[in-house]
């Protein structure tokens, strides 16, 4: 080795050693990781980029609500510090970010990570670390189903299968001669809906005349729509994420196919419907059937005097003034944030991870301001599907009009177990 090189090497070793010594200062001892006298640190990831970026607004809604909470005294005197990163809907990216949140940022809990694959990847690590993995934003049934293996993980929104069962019942009741064509996303999310539909139809599964799948990387679902139309189907199930659901409605109208259409809840936010109506004309969306379990921020007439909606509008006006508050994803964020804060409040001043899990799994929350009137967020240690109530709704010109009564799918979900 030449001398300058040796000098450089010695320098690097020395610096590294110095950093090693100074870097290992001992953190102050606190009762629980991520909780100090003044702060609770929560972490989460959302797809702000990538194929599912429409859901990024959920994270923004949560951020707005936490700011509101902090400006109104926080949670039992503590402010929430919310670390929210972009995972691009990629499991490895989410795993890396969450490692950083747990090990570096010392979060108290991981909250509202989004997507079935992302959460499947996160779940073993968080359960091994004993970090609460709360209210994951996916309707796969595994979150409620596999709690014994993963006690630190819990979902929030209704189970996809239960939702599809409601559609099947509606078909059997109102369109018993239907010929059903299904468009579904070729992944676990689409498969969950298909399974629910088949379970709901029971012995009438032969009503399904055609199933067409798409990949999230497909540019368009045009050929799938043509196939479904050609099959002679007169009833159209759309089990698709927003971008493809909008395309499906628009392309069906453009191909002069006007079936009875059922649209899964995750794509039924009003801005998506408006986008479809704009591109495909009013006939593209008229009479579409979906389900509701939260209030609809775009239904201005129905919720004109609603205290919860007024409260939501105030939060949005103050903390996200430039956002389109009619987008149900923001409302989802505020609503799920409310449940999170509710659990933290109930856990009291002496906050521990264990206690928060106990409360999240023994929850009866009747006052979520943004849940559809009558919807109760309800769990027990052996039944971990927080929202099981839904109501079917029909799209009438400008907004969703609820039909019939609120249905509790709890019994269905229990049977599924």
């Amino acid at each position: 080795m030449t001398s300058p090189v040796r000098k450089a090497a010695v320098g690097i070793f020395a610096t590294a050693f110095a950093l090693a010594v100074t870097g290992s200062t001992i953190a102050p001892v606190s009762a629980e990781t991520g909780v100090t006298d003044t702060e609770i640190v929560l972490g989460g990831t959302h797809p702000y980029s990538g194929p599912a970026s429409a859901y990024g607004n959920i994270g923004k809604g949560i951020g707005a609500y936490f700011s509101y909470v902090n400006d109104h005294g926080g949670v039992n005197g503590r402010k929430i510090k919310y670390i929210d990163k972009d995972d691009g809907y990629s499991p490895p990216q989410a795993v890396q970010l969450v490692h950083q949140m747990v090990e570096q940022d010392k979060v108290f809990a991981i909250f509202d990570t989004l997507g079935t694959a992302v959460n499947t990847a996160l779940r073993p690590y968080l359960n091994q670390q004993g970090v609460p993995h709360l209210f994951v934003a996916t309707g796969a049934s595994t979150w409620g189903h596999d709690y014994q293996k993963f006690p630190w993980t819990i979902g929030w929104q209704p189970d996809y299968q239960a939702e599809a069962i409601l559609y099947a019942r509606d078909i059997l009741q109102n369109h018993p001669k239907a010929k059903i064509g299904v468009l579904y996303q070729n992944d676990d999310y689409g498969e969950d809906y298909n399974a629910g539909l088949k379970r709901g139809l029971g012995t009438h599964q032969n009503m399904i005349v055609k199933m067409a799948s798409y990949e999230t990387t497909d540019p368009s679902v045009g050929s799938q729509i043509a196939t479904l139309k050609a099959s002679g189907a007169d009833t159209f199930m759309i089990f698709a994420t927003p971008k493809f659901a909008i395309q499906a409605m628009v392309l069906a109208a453009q191909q002069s196919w006007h079936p009875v259409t059922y649209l899964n809840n995750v794509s039924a936010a009003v801005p998506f419907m408006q986008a479809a109506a704009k591109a495909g004309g009013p006939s593209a969306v008229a009479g579409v059937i979906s389900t509701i379990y939260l209030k609809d921020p775009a239904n201005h007439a129905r919720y004109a005097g609603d205290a919860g909606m007024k409260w939501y509008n105030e939060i949005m006006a103050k903390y996200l003034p430039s956002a389109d508050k009619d987008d149900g994803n923001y409302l989802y964020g505020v609503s799920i944030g409310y449940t999170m804060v509710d659990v933290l409040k109930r856990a009291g001043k002496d906050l521990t991870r264990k206690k928060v899990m106990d409360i999240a799994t023994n929850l009866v929350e009747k006052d979520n301001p943004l849940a559809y009137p009558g919807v109760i967020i309800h769990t027990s240690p052996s039944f971990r599907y927080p929202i099981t109530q839904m109501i079917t709704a029909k799209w009438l010109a400008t907004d969703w009009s609820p039909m019939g009564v609120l249905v509790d799918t709890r019994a269905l979900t229990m049977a599924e177990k």
Partner: protein
Amino acid sequence: MRPNVAALARVGIAVAIIALLPAVVPSFLVFDLIYVAAFSIAILGLVILTGMNGQISLGHGAFMALGGYVVAVLAHSAGWPYWAGILAAMVACGLFGLVFGLIALRLAGVYLALATFSLAVATPSFLKHYKSITGGFGGMSLQPVQAPAGIPTDGQHWLYYVSWAVAGLAFAVSALIVRGKFGRALRALRDNPIAAVSFGVNPYVYKTLAFGWSAVLAGLAGAFYAIPTAYVSPDTFTFALSITLLIGAVLGGISTFWGALVGGIVVEFLPLVAQQINAAAPSVVYGVALILVMMFLPDGIVGGVLRLVYRFRPAPSQPALESSTPSAAPVAVSPQTRE
């Protein structure tokens, strides 16, 4: 050949830094650095294939997927230890790479890019279709790595050292492969295929072998991408991964091995840094960074650094980069123009 002292010293410093980093950085960063090792190995494959041989691949994510899934399936379904799975992944990817390399012989430039891209696009559907083997959409969870008994460290640090030791080995073997006749043949075929063939270089053999070795590296990278995540799913290996790898190679410097290392760092950390700069639109920051580098550092970060060095220092008698471009001054290699 006289050993290049300066080059060896640089390698020595890099090894020392990698060995010491875990002592000074927080543990989550150690975790991120495992991914840097994986990305660096994959990009090394691109440096050899695209940078040195001029064959553009937009499908290296597919080879990573194959590698990752071979390890995952063998570990998950057959109970193989990871090390055996990794070797199997390398063999599988090497064979697949050789076969694909034979196809690639018939395609050049943008046509090859498209063919490899279709491979990347088809991969997730393929993985979803063969559910019984791959676990379908839901993917497969893997056992987290534990340090072997008697080694006083946790699984994460153990995996860090193993992944970097493997990366070091991959770099060293690749350097040996491309330094002599083989490397010259690759570059000759890139720069002037007609002249190369006239001098007796068999393009079929060399181009196919380059594809095969590049695929071996990508498969190895895929294994070290899957193991720390302890989970594989079709969403893990989208076509975006393939593009990201090529971006990393170009940003790092596609004509040098150092570019692969820098590229690995860029691919891992640029998205994270972009989020720090602007949480609302990380992809915009990412894009702007890409444009800036392309405008001001057309031969990548490593090339840019070298240019600075040469500007302020007389050129050394030896080529500064082992197994790099033949001229002492770094030259931007743009494969399209050299076809």
